[in-house]
Every structure is written in structure tokens, then in C-alpha cells.
């Protein structure tokens, strides 16, 4: 993507984000959000992060590549375990990176 397209992207996402933030405070003040939208909002984050994680770990250049002989999937697995146990984002990142470096030394 060229720089001009990236600038456009930043301003489009910025405008959309501001719209969401200002919508009920300013534009539609006095109205309530419809129930289906509130239900939908609950699942946006898990669906997004799952799709992004799967794509970051197992998609390489438009094709699925599950390379279990490389460190990253295993480092991600250890990180997921730490996240599940501790619920701590920083601890998850630290353990995941440490596992990555350790495996790179071994493999």
C-alpha cells in the first residue's frame, strides 16, 4: 500500500471511530441502542482477535501454512497457556517472546 493510501486509511478509520464514540453522546442523544446491536457487540472482539491470531500464525502469503517445525506456533501456545492462567497481557507477551528466543536457540 502506498503512503497516500495509508493516510486515507488512517483518516477513514479515525472518522469511523469518532462517529461511534460521538454517536450516542451527540448525534442520536436521547435514543437507545437497539438490543440486537448490543448482543452483536459482545462477540466482535472474540471473533476479531481469533481471526487475526489464526491469520497471523498460520497464513503466509495468501496460503495456509501450519509450520510446526518453526518456533512461532509453539511460542504462541505457551503464551496462550500463560494468558489463560494469569489473565495478564504483559506476562503473556513476555513469556511468548522468551519462548520464541529459547526455541530459536534450540531449533
Amino acid at each position, binding site marked *: *500500500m502506498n*503512503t497516500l493510501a*495509508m*493516510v*486515507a*486509511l*488512517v483518516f*477513514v*478509520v*479515525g472518522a*469511523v*471511530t*469518532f462517529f*461511534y*464514540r*460521538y*454517536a*450516542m*453522546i*451527540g448525534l442520536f442523544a*436521547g435514543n437507545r*441502542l437497539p438490543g440486537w*446491536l448490543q*448482543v*452483536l*457487540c*459482545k*462477540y*466482535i*472482539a*472474540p*471473533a*476479531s*482477535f*481469533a*481471526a*487475526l491470531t*489464526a*491469520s*497471523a*500464525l*498460520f*497464513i503466509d*502469503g*495468501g*496460503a495456509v501454512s501450519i509450520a510446526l517445525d518453526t518456533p512461532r506456533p509453539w*511460542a*504462541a501456545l505457551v*503464551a*496462550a497457556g500463560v*494468558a*489463560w492462567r494469569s*489473565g*495478564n*497481557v*504483559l506476562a*503473556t*507477551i513476555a513469556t*511468548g*517472546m522468551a519462548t520464541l528466543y529459547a526455541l530459536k536457540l534450540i531449533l
Partner: protein
Amino acid sequence: MHRAASREFIAGCRDEAPLLLGAIPFGMLYGISSLAAGVPAWLAQLASAVVFAGAAQLVIVQMLAAGAGLMPTALTSGLLNVRHLLYSASMAGYLAHLPRRWRMVLAYLLTDEAYAVAVLHYQAREASADPDMRHWYFLGAGFTLWFAWQLSTAFGLVFGAAIPPEWELEFAVPLTFIALLTLLLRERAGQAAAMVAGAAALLLAALPFKLGLVIAIITGLAAGVWTARRLERVA
């Protein structure tokens, strides 16, 4: 400034401070991974001011690094920010009496972290003083996070330039997504949404511009809503 106003402002800054512990490393990570993804430093900093939403900014960086197109990237990061509608709805009643410019500024500052602190303040304390000065508290909390976010982005960009690519620090971005995802998986319908979205992302990998990611997220959303409905009916 009214004395009550400055007292509220300072209290907002103070109560937001503990949340910076999470926000500052996140901002630095964003700065570092932006450079790794080939985003110019000035544009990464501009995005922190214009978008001002950490997770969405990381998504943009991640997708640019993977060669995604303009529309899929805008749709995915835009979709992730829909939750701000909920915050906006939840704050609307408290801010209804304010002039428009106040409401616009506070809306701009309505991040996850500022919302968390401000909504507690509004709920915990009735408008004891007359006039109600609690919007100054919100402003203090929001401004504190804004300032820390801009500064930590800048730090990340400065450090990022000095970090060799062999450190693979961009891997911290999917690790962040894993951490956030795990925190969200305590509920059955959320698990269904995540599993379907993850599987669909792989099945649709061949679609151009990472369009598969957008469709995967929407499919996951549908799975989440469907599962929640079914569980409701069984219970």
C-alpha cells in the same frame, strides 16, 4: 477555572494513572511494530492522534504487514471499534447537559481506559456539587491517557528504529491478540464466535487483500449470536 473543576480534573488524572501501566507498553509496542511493518514514523504518530484506539491501530499495522488491502483493513479495524457505541450510549445521559464542543472533546477521548474510569466516577458519586463538574474528571482521565498514548507511541518509534529485525518484536502483536482473546473466552457463545472466526480465517486465506479476514469475523459474529440464542432457549 472553577476550583471544583480543577479538583475534578486532577482527580481524573490521578485515577487514570494506574491504567497507564497497561497502556504505555501497548503504545510502545504499536510504535515498534509500525516501523517493522513499513509504516512511516510520522504516519504512525498521526494515527495515534487521529484514530486513538490501541487495538484498532495494532490491527491496521498487522494487516498492512500482511499485505492487506485498504477496504479489508478499514473494515476490520472499524468493526473492532463498534464497541465504542456501547460506551457512547452508556455515557450519553451523563453528558446530555453539556454544550456540543464539550461533548465532541469527550467523545474523542472515549477510549476503553477512560470509559472504565469515568463511568465508575459517574456511577459512584451523585452530582453533589451544583453545578455538576464531573465532566472535568472525565476530561482529566481522558487527557491523561491521550498524553501517555502519544508519548509512548513516540518512544516506540524512537526505540523501534534501533531494534534489529532478528528480535522479531512484531511477533508481540499476535501475542497481544492471543492475550486479549483468552480473556474473552470465559463464555460459551464467545468461544463459538472465536472458533468459527479462526477456522473461517484459514479456510478463506486465499481471498485477495485479506478480505477473508472480514468475512471470517462476520461469520464468527453470526456463530456467537446463534449460540447465545440456542443456549437461551435451552436454559
